[in-house]
């Protein structure tokens, strides 16, 4: 008995469900409005990306106790998004005479070769303040101010010194592919040239020119 009732229910349900399907088949618009199931081929637009930035810089670097000397080098940056970029940098400078060497009058602490300092670093930067700089009435130059920090290595006096660097920079773009950069960095490392381990802060200020490609 119960099975029979169920059969009727199921049959009724089947008819009800089938009804809309039939209605669709009879639909006079069926032929006109048919789902377009054709597979669309989407081609990639032919466009050149310019996420890399190659720069050269020159400036002044002060190495604690060894005076200020010219610094120059280069960097390669990859722009991750409008806010962040990562950069590999290289630079070199020379150490001057330390006050200890000058005052004591003793033999120089380092040879000329040992006074040459090379450093490189891996850094991450945040474009904090994008905007425009205005030059007279005529030019509005795109710009941004960035905070940058990273780790690296400084080698001088036949030793490697693990170096943290952090700083701030400004970038001005006279054209989309060209930028002028101003950077101030603090390079922090420890050395024990004077007998005991000391942490030194070594500041550099540099002007750079970079090209996007």
């Amino acid at each position, binding site marked *: 008995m119960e099975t029979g009732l169920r059969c009727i229910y199921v049959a009724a349900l089947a008819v009800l469900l089938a009804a809309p399907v039939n209605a669709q088949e009879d639909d006079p618009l069926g032929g006109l409005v048919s789902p377009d199931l054709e597979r669309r081929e*989407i081609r990639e*637009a032919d466009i*050149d990306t*310019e996420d890399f930035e190659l720069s050269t810089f020159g400036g002044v670097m002060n190495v604690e106790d060894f005076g200020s000397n010219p610094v120059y080098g280069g960097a390669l940056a990859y722009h991750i998004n*409008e806010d962040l970029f*990562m950069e590999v940098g290289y630079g070199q400078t020379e150490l001057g005479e330390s006050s200890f060497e000058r005052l004591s009058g003793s033999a120089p602490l380092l040879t000329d070769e040992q006074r040459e300092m090379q450093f490189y670093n891996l850094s991450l930067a945040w474009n904090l303040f994008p905007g425009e700089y205005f030059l007279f009435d005529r030019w509005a130059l795109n710009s941004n101010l960035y905070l940058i920090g990273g780790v690296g*290595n400084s080698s001088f006096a036949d030793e*490697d010194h693990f170096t943290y660097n952090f700083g701030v920079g400004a970038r001005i773009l006279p054209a989309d592919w060209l930028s002028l950069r101003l950077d101030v960095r603090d390079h922090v490392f420890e050395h024990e040239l004077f007998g005991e381990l000391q942490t030194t802060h070594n500041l550099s200020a540099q002007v750079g020119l970079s090209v996007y490609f």
Partner: protein
Amino acid sequence: MLLLSLTTLFGSVASAGVQFPQHVPEDAEPVSVDAPYVNVYTGPGRGYPIFHALERGEIVWLLKQRTDWVKVTTRRGHTGWVRVADLADIFSPEGEPLRIDRVDFRDHRSQTLQLGFTYGDFAGADSMGVNLGYRFTANLSGELRATQAVGQFSDSQTYQVAVLHQPFPRWRVSPYFMLGTGINITSPNATIVATEDRQDTAMLTGFGLKTFIARRFALRAEVANHYLLTSRENNQEIIEWKLGFDVFM
């Protein structure tokens, strides 16, 4: 005026090849934008002013892309930057749908190159490193790794090849396991210990966590065991802790 703009519109659509205005370079790709309007900025960033809007169906030329922004120019010479996201529906003058490439970590099918920097502790020495990885599948990637560590008593360099397995790539914080091999070059600081540089083959095992904080930017933390097969009596084990980031290129 209206007639003029209509004729230019129809002229551009009717002819198979769109006429390039003089200021447009020949290799620029012309597209029409299927969006109510698209803001045009003076620079590639949200902070720059909007100075123009593109209309639906207007033909623009794609000049170049920087990060998530595309430089476009219009027939009348308005040149500026638009978001890639606003150019989701673009068509060639022949009506062919086009797409602008955007790398996304959520697209697990895409095989991508990853570049990362790390900072860490290599058995007491400070270390920094570069990784270049390639994702073969959602779960499996290969990686080339170079690290330099500077310590009080010795400096070392390591160069490795590793395979990374991510069992749950869709998790917000996704763990990975690593197996690799390479060489470790150790140079003791000459002033303290008078020994020669050593070069040892190393076996690498590791475990790490990766989390994406932007579409192409992931943070990672890792602990690795370097098992050095030395020519001395005992092999040496070094534990390395690392923090870093990866970028999908």
